[in-house]
């Protein structure tokens, strides 16, 4: 049991699974000798060899599609996109093949693979290094979209994702790669996919979030508690398929919900959650569901990126709105 950061937990999970399952291989740009630009794959090449930890040429479409070819042969590739902003070149392969191979062949072939990518803004990076476009993948049937928001969940959910027999988009909130450390037992125990995690129980309002925004959401819950408002905080974690049950139960209890995400609002995952809850919890809701999100524009370069990102005060403001009603 050691205190590790989120990115270290990713590395631990990769190392554990590679040690216990020789079908697991890692590929991507700069993942081998350099250990990844965020050091998520550091040490793996030395331990497992270049055969299983592969630096690829610079081509995301190729990375995505090569992983499909490896996976149908029974390997379990974990392919890294260096930043989520560079995943789009691979979308054709992800949407048309990784997500469909099992269905297309009626189960004859399938794709037990993981596409990892650091995502989200707030680290003062150049353009295209701050993307949060999880909604694009959540809309694609056949994909799991998983986002950890703590070292423990990074470890357990990544293990589950690698072991899952179907393709998983595993998005790592890089703003909190090293923000907190947490004791994580390196015991190979996976956490369940397709399940939300209730991080904090409460009665007055349900705060729903994922990824790095969990930090501001939890902070908001603390401040609300000081004001006598009891907020339940749910980390969606598995963005797709979505665990609507847990969300619904919470909203049935609190009657109010605020959804927080970094991606822009229009067509974000918050829309699906709000629409589902508004439909199924119609009679329970005492106020409209409010979304606290990025703006419907391109994330600004870093001088203005903070103005784009949802802040604690924005969440508090939204809660005020729904509680006042």
């Amino acid at each position, binding site marked *: 049991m050691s205190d590790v950061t989120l990115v270290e937990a990713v590395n631990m999970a990769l190392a554990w699974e590679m040690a216990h399952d020789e079908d697991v291989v890692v590929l991507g740009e700069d993942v081998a000798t350099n250990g990844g630009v965020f050091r998520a794959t550091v040490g793996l090449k030395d331990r497992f060899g270049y055969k299983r930890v592969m630096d690829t040429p610079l081509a995301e*479409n190729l990375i995505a599609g090569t992983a499909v*070819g*490896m996976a149908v042969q029974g390997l379990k590739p974990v392919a890294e996109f260096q930043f989520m902003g560079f995943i789009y070149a691979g979308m054709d392969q992800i949407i048309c093949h990784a997500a469909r191979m*099992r269905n297309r062949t009626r189960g004859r072939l399938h794709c037990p693979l993981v596409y990892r990518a650091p995502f989200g803004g707030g680290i003062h990076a150049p353009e295209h290094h701050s993307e949060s476009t999880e909604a694009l993948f959540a809309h694609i049937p056949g994909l799991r979209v998983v986002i950890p928001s703590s070292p423990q969940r990074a470890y357990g959910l990544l293990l589950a994702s690698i072991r899952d027999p179907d393709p998983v988009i595993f998005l790592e909130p890089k703003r909190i790669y090293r923000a907190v450390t947490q004791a994580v037992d390196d015991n190979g125990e996976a956490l369940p996919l397709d399940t939300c995690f209730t991080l904090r129980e409460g009665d007055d309002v349900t705060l729903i979030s994922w990824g790095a925004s969990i930090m501001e959401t939890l902070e908001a819950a603390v401040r609300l508690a000081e004001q006598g408002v009891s907020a339940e905080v749910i980390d969606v974690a598995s963005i797709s398929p979505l665990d*609507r049950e847990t969300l619904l139960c919470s909203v049935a209890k609190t009657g109010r919900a605020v959804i927080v995400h970094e991606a822009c609002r229009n067509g974000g995952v918050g829309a699906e959650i709000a629409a589902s809850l508004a439909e199924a919890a119609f009679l329970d809701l005492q106020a409209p569901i409010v979304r606290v999100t990025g703006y419907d524009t391109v994330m600004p370069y870093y001088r203005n990126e903070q103005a784009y990102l949802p802040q604690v005060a924005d969440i508090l403001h939204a809660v005020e709105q729904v509680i006042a009603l």
Partner: protein
Amino acid sequence: MKDRYDFHVDRVRYLDDHGVPLDTLPDLANHHDRLLAAYANMVLTRTFDNKVIALQRTGQCGTYPSVLGHEVIGTVIGQCMAKSDVLVPYYRDQAAQIQRGVTLTELLLYWGGDERGSAWAHCPQDLPIAVPIATQCCHAVGVASAMRIREQHRAVVCCLGDGASSKGDFLESVNLAGAWHLPVVFVASNNQWAISTPRSLQSGAETIAQKAISGGLPGHVVDGNDYFALTEVLTQALERARAGKGGAVIEAETYRLGDHTTADDATRYRSAEELKRAWEREGVKRMQNYLHQAGLWNAEKEQKLQSECKGFVETAVKAYLASEPEPPTAMMDFLFETLPAALQGQRERLAEKYRQGGVS
């Protein structure tokens, strides 16, 4: 330090347009059973092809891409590959697929709009058809990587068209094959057209084979209607690949004798003249001519083969036409290994709707 780097691609041909040897044939010419099996597969493929087009015209099958003009290429691929190799086909590889063990009924199901047409029992590791052009090239290098990682002596044949050779997927994959010394042989069937786009507009490159050079692979141009030439070049490439000596790109020159698919009308964009010339060079007749000259064939054998092939096709068509569509719920049953809880409600509603015979 060099002041010049030289590259080349070779071009191989053994038969003239009429099946007359231009040179001493390779030893292969003595393997009569193999030659006859090849010809039989070409005829079966063509018989099947004609039938599917007829089914489509009468509303009994979906849009279908005729294999006419590609029979030799597919047949050679099927013959040269070992069972343990993996075929990554494109949609005009019926002749190869049949030899790999895909049944005619499966092919019909596929083109008839039924996913079970890709659930092949006899070549379980072969890739299904990738409809988005050229995307299969990346799978091919992935499969080949798996073979290399596991140190297996197997190879991959990845098929594509001339149009596909313009797409990044192919070019990136050729590059990876070169960088990683992967056991993959790309066979580009250059049939001179990508739907209505002629080869001349597809690329300024003189050959498709020279695209190999961009990835450091050997490239070969072969007359794709010449059974001997293609067999020789592909056999050698596969042997090299299985022996860990890396991949290759083979351009098999041919001509698409039919419309692009049953949804196309090629008279809109190409001349009867050009088509006529291509028919004079086509491969099945050429192979038949060769067999005749070699004393291996006669009219009687031809008639028997034709009627056998018709029989096979009829049987397959019957099975296809008699097949019940899958229940609609099948659409949700193969998405994931286990249906996620989030989708159970939808599946139930779908089942309910069709228990009642559908609602519309």
